[in-house]
């Protein structure tokens, strides 16, 4: 039996005060909340340059010390992801990333690796998205050394154990049959295919013919070529001294050479598809229609793109208006979201998502489209815009409210090529957005004639509700009304 005391000193008491505390200045309660007085919010984001370090092999590392909890977070991102895979190799990047964690390491068979990680209480994950891959470690500071040993070996030398690869492939095969169970998944799939085309890297999905290419040798080769130190950034935060963290990472990645081949192309290529406007529907026996509507946006003209703050304010305004109209005034939806992103190297996406009873879908779409038009036609009244700006400025500190977020956000800057000054200037840029700017931008970037609407729901009820409301579905947006087929979940071919 071992008895050990804590390595960390902390305040050792739980205060329980049962009666109100001693005298405090009297508080006057104003009759309206508008009459409350607020001091200025003081918040300076941490100095990124002071948190940035470079390992001897050139890997940038951001370290944010915080000793509140006895935990350390390490996050690693590498330039690997679905965009690298040619269409016939769909799924390779994601599957590789998944097996980095599941397939053991050079010196540890997968069962041993898992057992050691779990015994430490460490949380180790690896993952990939369309434009990024990486791994994360969360471990008690006491076990940081052992946790990092596992983590580093996993990143540098994953084993891709044949048994585990086969088991994961089996599970992947099984999951193909479930891909049309969830209506929201169907909605997102059809939306992506219409906007970017079925072969776009962020849209295409694994089909049975891809499965046989997901074998250990292929995964290892892909990992060697794309999980490489010369495209890596690291974020460390939590209960560790900066010097200690750097020394450990130095040891971890020392002597790991970059492969001789060129790094994957960056940024990811743009789609060449021009979406066809119109209303598209998938007929399903569900009581609530799920709707996405929007169109492709524009490419980012640099990180100081003057449109960006205006877009954020415009979107904040639209979001507020949609919620007020559709939920508060009409009671048609539980929630509605809008977003407008600038693309890194390809057009971003403007979209509105809503869910409403089938019979109300046409009405809800009509209202949403009208709100889009209104932003083009009328300037947003300055008070409304002022609130949108204030909400963005005052909510800003939440982007930095844990050490993991601070380190991660700065490391992400480096990954994307976004200058740290982006954050320094963010609030000022928002503060200067004017109604004229928003309207000009709305006229340029919101294009009702290009709207693509995808609806998954029970079409007979949608049509009946439309008729009762005096709405012709054909007139909701420009372009034809098209019935999309249900797809076979495994092949994704129309049934």
């Amino acid at each position, binding site marked *: 039996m071992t008895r050990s*005391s804590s390595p960390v000193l902390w305040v050792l008491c739980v205060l329980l005060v049962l009666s109100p505390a001693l005298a405090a200045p009297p508080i006057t309660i104003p009759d309206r909340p508008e009459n409350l007085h607020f001091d200025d919010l003081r918040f300076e984001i941490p100095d990124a340059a002071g948190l940035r370090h470079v390992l001897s092999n050139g890997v940038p590392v951001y370290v944010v010390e915080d000793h509140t909890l006895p*935990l350390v977070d390490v996050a690693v991102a590498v330039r690997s992801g679905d965009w690298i895979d040619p269409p016939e190799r769909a799924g390779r990047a994601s599957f590789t990333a998944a097996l980095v964690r599941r397939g053991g390491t050079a010196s540890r068979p997968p069962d041993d690796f898992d057992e050691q990680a779990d015994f430490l209480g460490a949380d180790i994950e690896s993952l990939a998205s369309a434009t990024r891959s990486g791994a994360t470690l969360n471990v008690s500071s006491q076990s940081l050394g052992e946790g990092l040993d596992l983590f580093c070996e996993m990143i540098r030398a994953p084993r891709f154990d044949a048994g585990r690869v086969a088991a994961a492939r089996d599970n992947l095969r099984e999951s193909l049959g479930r891909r049309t169970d969830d209506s929201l998944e169907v909605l997102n799939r059809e939306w992506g295919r219409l906007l970017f085309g079925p072969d776009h890297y962020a849209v295409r999905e694994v089909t049975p013919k891809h499965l046989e290419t997901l074998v250990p040798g292929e995964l290892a080769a892909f990992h060697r070529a794309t999980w490489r130190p010369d495209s890596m950034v690291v974020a460390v935060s939590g209960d560790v001294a900066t010097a200690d963290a750097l020394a450990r990472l130095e040891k971890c990645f020392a002597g790991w050479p970059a492969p001789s081949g060129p790094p994957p192309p960056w940024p990811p290529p743009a789609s060449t598809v021009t979406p066809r406007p119109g209303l598209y529907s998938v007929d399903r026996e569900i009581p609530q229609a799920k709707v996405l509507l929007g169109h492709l946006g524009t490419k980012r003209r640099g990180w100081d793109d003057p449109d960006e703050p205006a877009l954020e304010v415009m979107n904040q305004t639209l979001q507020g208006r949609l919620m007020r109209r559709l939920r508060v005034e009409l009671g048609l939806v539980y929630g509605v979201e809008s977003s407008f992103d600038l693309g890194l190297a390809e057009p971003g996406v403007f979209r509105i998502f809503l869910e409403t009873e089938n019979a109300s879908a046409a009405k809800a779409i009509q209202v949403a489209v009208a709100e889009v038009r209104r932003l083009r036609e009328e300037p947003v009244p300055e008070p409304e815009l002022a609130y949108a700006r204030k909400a963005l400025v005052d909510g800003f500190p939440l982007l930095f409210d844990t050490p993991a977020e601070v380190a991660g956000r700065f490391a992400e800057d480096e990954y994307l090529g976004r200058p740290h000054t982006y954050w320094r200037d963010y609030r000022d840029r928002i503060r200067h957005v004017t109604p004229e700017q928003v309207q000009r931008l709305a006229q340029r970037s919101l294009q009702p004639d290009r709207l693509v609407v995808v609806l998954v729901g029970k079409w007979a009820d949608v049509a009946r509700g439309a008729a009762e409301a005096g709405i012709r579905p054909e007139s909701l947006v420009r372009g034809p009304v098209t019935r999309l087929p249900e797809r076979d979940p495994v092949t994704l071919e129309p049934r």
Partner: protein
Amino acid sequence: MRTRASQTSFAGLCAKICRVPLAGFCRPSVRPAAAYLIYIALAAIDPGMAAPASSPQAAARLPVEAFELDNGMRFLLVRRPGVPMVAAGWAVRTGSGDEQPGSTGISHLLEHLMFHGSRRIGTRSPDREGDLMARQDDVADRLFDLRRQPASPARDAQIADFQHRLEKLLDDQRPLMVQGELWRLYQDQGAVGINALTDYDYTVYYGQIPANKLSLWFWLESDRLRDPVFREFYTEGRVVEEERRKRLESTPEGKAVEQLAATFWDGHPYAWPTLGRTEDLSGIRRAQAEAWFLARYRPDQITAALVGDFDPEQVKALARSYFGRLPRPATPPPALASSPAPAQTAERRVTETCDCTPQSRVLYRTPAFGHSDTYALDVLAGVLNGRTGRLYRSLVLGQGIAFAAYAQHEPDRRSGLFQVVLESKGEATPEALVGAWDAELDRLRREPVSGRELQKVKNQILTDSWRGLADPLALALRLLTWDARGDWRELDRWPEATQAITSADLQRVVSTWLNPQQRTVGILNRGRR
């Protein structure tokens, strides 16, 4: 199992930007974690079992400052200087478990109505509105009666007439209302994630407030607790129905799981979802919601929690000034509805079809929150779960018959639930998965869990317990929900108590609570294809 019901907020910044940028990829956390600060020395429990030097040995306690107002309202404060935000919320100890068949869903509907303002917020003329709402209610009463009469042309004509009158009265009220004012006041000041959720035993209202505007939270929250006005009662019902469609009726498993819960909790107030039964929702009247509020939203049933960057002395002064205005209740709080566990002597089996993966769910009644066996049941779930847990190792990797397999233990105020979810793979039937689970259970009964396996789970629980502290909002919610289910101090007891569990304890709780005669098995087969 349960479908938590909640408000949605006017999504702001955070809906767009991934919360933990590099690390998170916005993934949800898998296991529940509890939260502690301050370490206490803990002994590794199994005699002779030397924990390796690297295993986390210390549990930590929360530096919570707790105080109570004269009216019985409690406050829990955790100061987190740094980023100028405060996660703030309050929970009232009432939820769908207090409801009666016939008016299920009233707690959740009330949660929605609490966002429609007060005598001061959301209105241009509270008195004129009051008159109109009284007239609306009269008309609605007539409509309600008419709808229960047998259909006839005369009745239908009357319904149409009263419906028209109701619409007219609603239209008359509209110019007097400031719709969505509560949301707007928060959002315009940079508050984020203003929301609420209803569960079996509690209803909690929360958000994140810029630290310099904390007095806004005190103003608006105490205001709506003083005299809320349930305006837009007749349209909010539609929003709630949309929420039900979204969460229950149009998800792959929603309806089947609702049926399973009804069978499992038969005769118990957890038998209906917090979203309510459809047929009940439409019959709830405004007066009922008002009475429900008056009886249950009492300061001595409410706890508030704040986590973030604030001055505790200032918060205490604000609490006394604002929430101190709520009158001290003169009557004792409503008694907790008794919940006799109906005697069950044989397994219940429910077969449902769904547009989902074939799966089985095995459900057991377990003791309520705070019971000493809940700790061993948590450790038991740990033995079963995770990459090296028995379910994954055996059913997913070893036998290859499951796509996924996990256990959940949820002790609530009136009762607990231990549930095993087994998703089938390939040709394996849901019934075969139940057989595989029985074999695992049998092994648990026969063989003591090894010292190392037990220590592994304890190490995981301890580390997880710290993880839950990292996010201020998650910590505030944990304080509130644990307090509402029993006592927030369980957050301190829990790590110590789980570290003390022995393999004999595990065998004991398996034989006490995971009894084949007292379980409910849900078999979900794919229906559509």
